[in-house]
């Protein structure tokens, strides 16, 4: 599903965020990418959504080589990958419904289809009774659920979650992780980028550990060992 082949990414003036990173994530896997701050975790997410381009190596998602993806192809790529961010990245002046619907509107879905799908997805994340609220009227956990609903709306094959529990308390974090597991059970590949030791250890799933821009460990049923 996701393949990185000897990927290197440098940032000026002299920071090397990733050095010859190679990894392969199978369809339907739940993978945690862990590491300390500055180890290159978020750089991988940014590369996968084509926010930045690699300086060397190859990136393939679902058979699509996005290494040298053209700017006009980026919207299509992002509609195929669900992304959940630590800071939720919700549109502040849109309601819960509109935030989720927006992801469908950008790909030209009809109003009737939007009104059919959005409530279904909001039900999955447990926000069916908060559709008219604005982000500032939601708790952190609820905001993250909206973010997940929006990421799921295109039924993506891959869901990237970049520190999704970074701004949440322990209990809410557990809820969010359970939601991600549920999504994974439906067959969606989930890539969880985190430095939350407790969560990673409780998952008992594959763990890729990054250290100073390199893959230091890749365990099938891993633990947070830094």
């Amino acid at each position, binding site marked *: 599903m996701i393949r990185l082949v000897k990927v290197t990414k440098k940032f000026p003036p002299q920071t090397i965020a990733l050095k010859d990173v190679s990894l392969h994530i199978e369809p339907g896997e739940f993978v945690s990418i862990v590491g300390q701050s500055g180890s290159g975790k978020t750089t991988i997410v940014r590369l996968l*959504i084509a*926010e930045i381009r690699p300086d060397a190596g190859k990136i393939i998602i679902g058979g699509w080589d996005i290494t040298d993806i053209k700017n*006009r192809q*980026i*919207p*299509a*790529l*992002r*509609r195929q990958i669900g*992304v959940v*961010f630590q800071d939720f*990245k*919700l*549109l*502040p*002046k*849109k309601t819960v419904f509109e935030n989720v619907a*927006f*992801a469908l*509107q*950008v*790909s*030209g879905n*009809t109003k009737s289809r939007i009104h059919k799908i959005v409530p279904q997805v909001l039900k999955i994340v447990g926000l069916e009774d908060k559709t008219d609220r604005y982000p500032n009227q939601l708790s952190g956990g609820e905001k993250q659920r909206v973010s997940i609903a*929006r990421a799921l709306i*295109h039924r993506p094959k891959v869901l990237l979650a970049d520190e999704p529990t970074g701004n949440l308390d322990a209990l809410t974090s557990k809820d969010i992780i359970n939601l991600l597991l549920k999504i994974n059970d439906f067959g969606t590949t989930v890539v969880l980028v985190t430095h939350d030791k407790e969560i990673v250890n409780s998952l008992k799933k594959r763990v890729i550990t990054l250290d100073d821009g390199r893959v230091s460990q890749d365990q099938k049923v891993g633990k947070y060992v830094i």
Partner: protein
Amino acid sequence: MFLAAIHRSIIFALQSFWRNIWLSLATIFIIALAFLSINFLVALNAISDSAIAAVKDKIDVSVYFKRDVKESKIAEIKSHLETLSQAKSVAYFSPDDNLAQFKARHQSDQIIQETLTELAGNPLGATLVIKAKELADYPEILKAIDNPAYTELIENKSYDDHQLVISRINSITDNIRKGGLIISLIFVVIAVLIVFNTVRIAIFTHQNEIGIMKLVGANNWFIRAPFILENVISGLVACVVATIVIYGILSFLQPHLTAFFGFDFNISKYFNDNFIKIFASELIGITVLNVISSSLALTKYLKV
């Protein structure tokens, strides 16, 4: 699909306009101020043009004929002067007309009235009053009057007294026009800069949203269109607001203007007569400016 996209852009633009109402009002306020300053200048130009025209209208050349010149001869000269392309009008005043006017003008002057009674007949000859189309045309008209064939017939010409005044008015009006043009250009540049930066600031406040839209897969036009439309709406509303305010100010100023300048000039009528020309051009200008400034400002934040 295309129509649906346009419909969606309009809805998004209206939503954003309403949900960011304070930002929208601030934008409208500043654009309306720019409009007002431009229209203030338009009004000023109209008033100065009208004042210049009123002064120019008062200028003419009077040719005073000797008493013994026959009316038929003067009619011949009048016909000749009327054929000149520079002449706007040539009016004939008979000796009797002139005497009546003279008496009326000096009716309170007892000495003049008595002197006229003592004189046996009418001491005044006929007069031709010539108005030129432009101030610059008077020399040509004078050249025609200075014809040697007429020299013996003419007692006096008023133009000799006016010549200095006319050349001064010519130079002043030229300077006013040039000054007006320069001030107009400065005002336009300032207004353009103000609107341009207001739109840029409005877009800047949306930069996070633009980034989020990009991250969820919106293409550039899907993001651009509502923001551009929103700013165009702000421009339209500002234009309407400014128009209402301008008419309010004009109707308040009108009586004072007439009293101040001493000639009848209806500034509201001027704006009514030129409504389409003034406001349509301003509306087109602000729309084009909004589209350009929004597009340029957005480009910066679309690189996500």
